């Protein structure tokens, strides 16, 4: 492999690596706008100009590749700094400089580089900037708003639609300083990944119509998490402030979602805000709903579960729980004799993420179907039982313990709810105040994925963890905690020492072969491929 010297640091890189990527390997950031590792290289923003020893003029680092030994690159020389200053000045010439009212402020490439590589003043002192008066607020599609005046013509979005989604809605029109991006006639930017263009837009030209003007980004706290929209397991960053989610952003993971997430997944947090939440443990006494303490509710639930009756006892779960929860649910099913497990899943292969190694496709609509199978809760049989329960095909149910109250809105379906209500005793744990929750005999409020921690295993057997982003409202507690309490109540002190997910996970690693030898804390940020047993990088 050829060696290259960048700012005096030598590094061996693969032949054909461009200088931006090579510099990253030695920890040097070369500023750039138009370059994106997943898009074709066009070398047109000219921000990444570097000097090469023996070269006549500065060259663009993105278009220059290391082909043989002996290349000596300077990224901070006087010539380079002058070029960078020149490009910054050019970029800001016709830019409106409206940062105070721009939603990108705080995460804007222009702001960042202007401070780092530009000068504090402009020599442009003319009355009129180039403006596109009619193009200040153009909806390119239902989810993306375009402001042409802020655009720096890097064409990342154009190349994204041409090369990643291959839908080609966007084009680059007109010439020179009048050049503008836009949709082709008769087309709108409405593809399953359309909002990714707002992520790759380095400036405030493309903004999300749902997020814009909702929150200044510097108030935002970012918590790494996993998308629950399907079982691809896209890595996301939950961006929240004051215990309120404002948006999901994709988090790079080369083996899963690459740089992208789909628009459907991006708004899964809206499920949690659009539906009313269950806040207190409630029991139906003499036909009336009564709020009771957790201790009381757990006791009653446990009593009901362990009492012997003639009918069926079924635990109906959904694919939205963590591995730890599924593990405990299985323990619960084993503890109470004669309990059947049922797992509601929905086959769904409509979600996809294009990556360089091929397209990632969903199999189920819930994130942890694979995990439920690996810990032994879910199986083809349990999927079938769930279907039969939902369709009202099992008649003599004595106790039905439903561990989720939403399941993508399924439990708001009156027909299904009626079928489930046929059980003598209906216990519902969940976060949404759905129709099902309202007809239950015992209501156990739980946290959402955002309010707890745990692990998911995606459809390619990659184990990933998510952490707590928000605090739970009211008296809601994680489902795993509820199950442990119930188990402790049925068989006193069996699970006395499990106070957090980390300890729970230890139990999983002891009992489940696939997870042997792992610890919760040491699950790497990009997850572990359980088939190969190697940490992803």
């Amino acid at each position, binding site marked *: 492999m050829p060696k290259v010297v960048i700012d005096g640091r030598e590094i061996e890189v693969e032949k054909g690596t461009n200088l931006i990527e090579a510099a990253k390997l030695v920890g040097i950031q070369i500023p750039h706008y138009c370059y994106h590792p997943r898009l074709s290289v066009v070398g047109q923003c000219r921000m990444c100009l570097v000097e090469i020893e023996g070269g006549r003029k500065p060259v663009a680092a993105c278009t220059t590749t290391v082909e043989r030994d002996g290349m000596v690159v300077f990224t901070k020389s006087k010539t380079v700094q002058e070029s960078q200053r020149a490009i910054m000045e050019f970029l800001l010439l*016709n830019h409106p400089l409206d940062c105070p009212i721009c939603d990108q402020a705080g995460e804007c490439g222009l702001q960042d580089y202007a401070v780092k590589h530009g000068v504090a003043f402009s020599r442009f002192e003319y009355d009129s900037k180039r403006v596109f008066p009619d193009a200040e607020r153009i909806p390119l599609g239902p989810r993306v708003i375009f402001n042409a005046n802020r655009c720096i013509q890097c064409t990342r979005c154009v190349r994204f639609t041409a090369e990643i989604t291959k839908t080609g809605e966007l084009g*680059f029109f007109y010439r020179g300083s009048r050049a503008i991006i836009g949709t082709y006639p008769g087309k709108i930017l409405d593809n399953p990944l359309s909002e990714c263009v707002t992520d790759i837009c380095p400036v405030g030209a493309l903004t999300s119509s749902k997020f814009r003007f909702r929150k200044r980004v510097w108030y935002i706290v970012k918590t790494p998490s996993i998308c629950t929209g399907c079982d691809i397991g896209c890595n996301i960053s939950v961006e929240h402030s004051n215990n309120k989610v404002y948006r999901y952003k994709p988090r790079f993971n080369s083996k899963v979602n690459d740089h992208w997430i789909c628009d459907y997944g991006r708004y899964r947090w809206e499920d949690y805000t659009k539906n009313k939440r269950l806040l207190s443990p409630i029991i139906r006494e003499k036909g009336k709903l009564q709020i009771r303490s957790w201790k009381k509710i757990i006791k009653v639930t446990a009593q009901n579960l362990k009492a012997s009756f003639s009918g069926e006892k079924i635990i109906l779960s959904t694919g939205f729980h963590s591995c730890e929860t599924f593990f405990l649910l299985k323990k619960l099913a084993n503890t109470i004799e004669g309990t059947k497990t049922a797992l509601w899943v929905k086959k769904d292969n409509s979600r996809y993420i294009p990556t360089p190694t091929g397209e990632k496709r969903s199999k189920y609509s819930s994130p942890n179907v694979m995990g439920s199978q690996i810990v032994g809760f879910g199986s083809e049989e349990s999927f079938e039982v769930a279907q039969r329960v939902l369709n009202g095909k099992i008649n003599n149910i004595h106790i039905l313990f439903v561990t989720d109250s939403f399941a993508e809105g399924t439990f708001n379906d009156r027909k299904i709810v009626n079928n489930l209500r046929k059980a003598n005793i209906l216990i519902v744990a969940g976060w949404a105040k759905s129709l099902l929750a309202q007809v239950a005999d015992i209501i156990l409020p739980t946290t959402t994925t955002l309010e707890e921690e745990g692990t998911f295993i995606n459809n390619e057997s990659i184990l990933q963890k998510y952490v707590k982003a928000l605090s739970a409202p009211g008296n809601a507690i994680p489902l795993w905690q509820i199950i442990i309490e119930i188990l402790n109540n049925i068989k006193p002190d069996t699970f006395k020492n499990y106070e957090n997910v980390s300890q729970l996970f230890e139990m999983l690693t002891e009992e489940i072969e696939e997870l042997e030898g792992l610890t919760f804390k040491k699950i790497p940020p990009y997850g572990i491929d359980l088939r190969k047993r190697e940490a992803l990088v």
Partner: protein
Amino acid sequence: MNYEPVLLRNIGKKLYKVADYVKEGGYSGLEKALQMKPEEITEEVKKANLRGRGGAGFPAGVKWSFVPKDIYPKYLVCNADESEPGTFKDRVLIEEDPHLLIEGCAISSYAIGANTCYIYIRGEYTKQADILEDAIADAYKEGIIGSKVMDSNFSLDIVVHRGAGAYICGEETGLLESLEGKRGQPRVKPPFPAVVGAFGKPTVINNVETLCCVPFIVSRGAEWFRSIGIDEKNCGPKLYAISGHVEKPGVYEFPMGITFEKLLEEAGGIWQGRKLKAFIPGGASAPVMTADDIGIPMSFDHLAKAGSMLGSAAVIVIDDNTCMVKVAKTIAHFFNHESCGQCTPCREGTNWLEYIIDKVLSGKATEKDIDLLTGVCNQIEGNCLCALGDAAAMSVRSIAIKFKEEFMKYVKKLTLVRE
């Protein structure tokens, strides 16, 4: 001047039919070429030191030899998008002697192993495109081109592709993008078109005049070609398109390296008995020369040494009644209008240049603005993706530096140079 024209020898003879062209000795070069090996032709062109007539002056034979042998298909593209302000030499060749171009295309295609040749002709050249298409149709009919070029095993298709009027499509990679049906904007180089060109295949792109020289090199030999002109590196017959303030503007053919003084004399001198103030030797992209440079030989190397360039030999003559600030404005406006908008320095810089010059013309500028003008030129130059930005910067800067006192007259609001 006693010079027998070579490229322009058929002017006025209306040789639109193959038969007429053959009567004048046409297609003998192609006939001879088909007896030779392709490499021999490339070698001969290399020996002739035929330099690209389109502007850059890159040796054509060397360019041909960059084409990889084992990748098919290959393409020859003839750049007839002549859109540099001041250039109109290719128009004359196409209009008056279309078969010479077809012959040049055929020989060059044979030399590089291309079976398809595209002639990318500027959109405004409607009449010329018609003439060329008629000539090509006749050449097909007479078996000059087609599946058997002059009864040999070599097959060649020539396709005329008409541009849509963008200057940037004269830049070779911009031309290729446009040819492929995309937005005409330059590609990143490397890879060079000789390796990855039209439709991703090896492509040689030559100017009309360059290709028109090839038949003569084949039939008369490299020695003969080198013997014309000022020296071995700057040789061959050359067309000069003279426009501006001269008595007889037009296309003239002379040996490469004729002095500007001589050229001016041939074109009848400055009109209306006025004096020479400046001249642009190679189209709007070339830095301006002053009256002091009148003795300079008009060749690639001599002009480059003097800080300008021969370009496409579009000589624009400027008399002493002309305001150089307005010349700068015209040039800046042209480049601002024609910048493709792809790369930052050219997109924003050319626009800014025109702004500053407008400010100077409006009388609101200060001396600082004139320094800013050269400063902006310096910021554009060397930072661009293609040569358009550099060209704008170099030519505007040359005017701003060499004729600074005229800019200062606007600043100081002295009597303006006459309109």
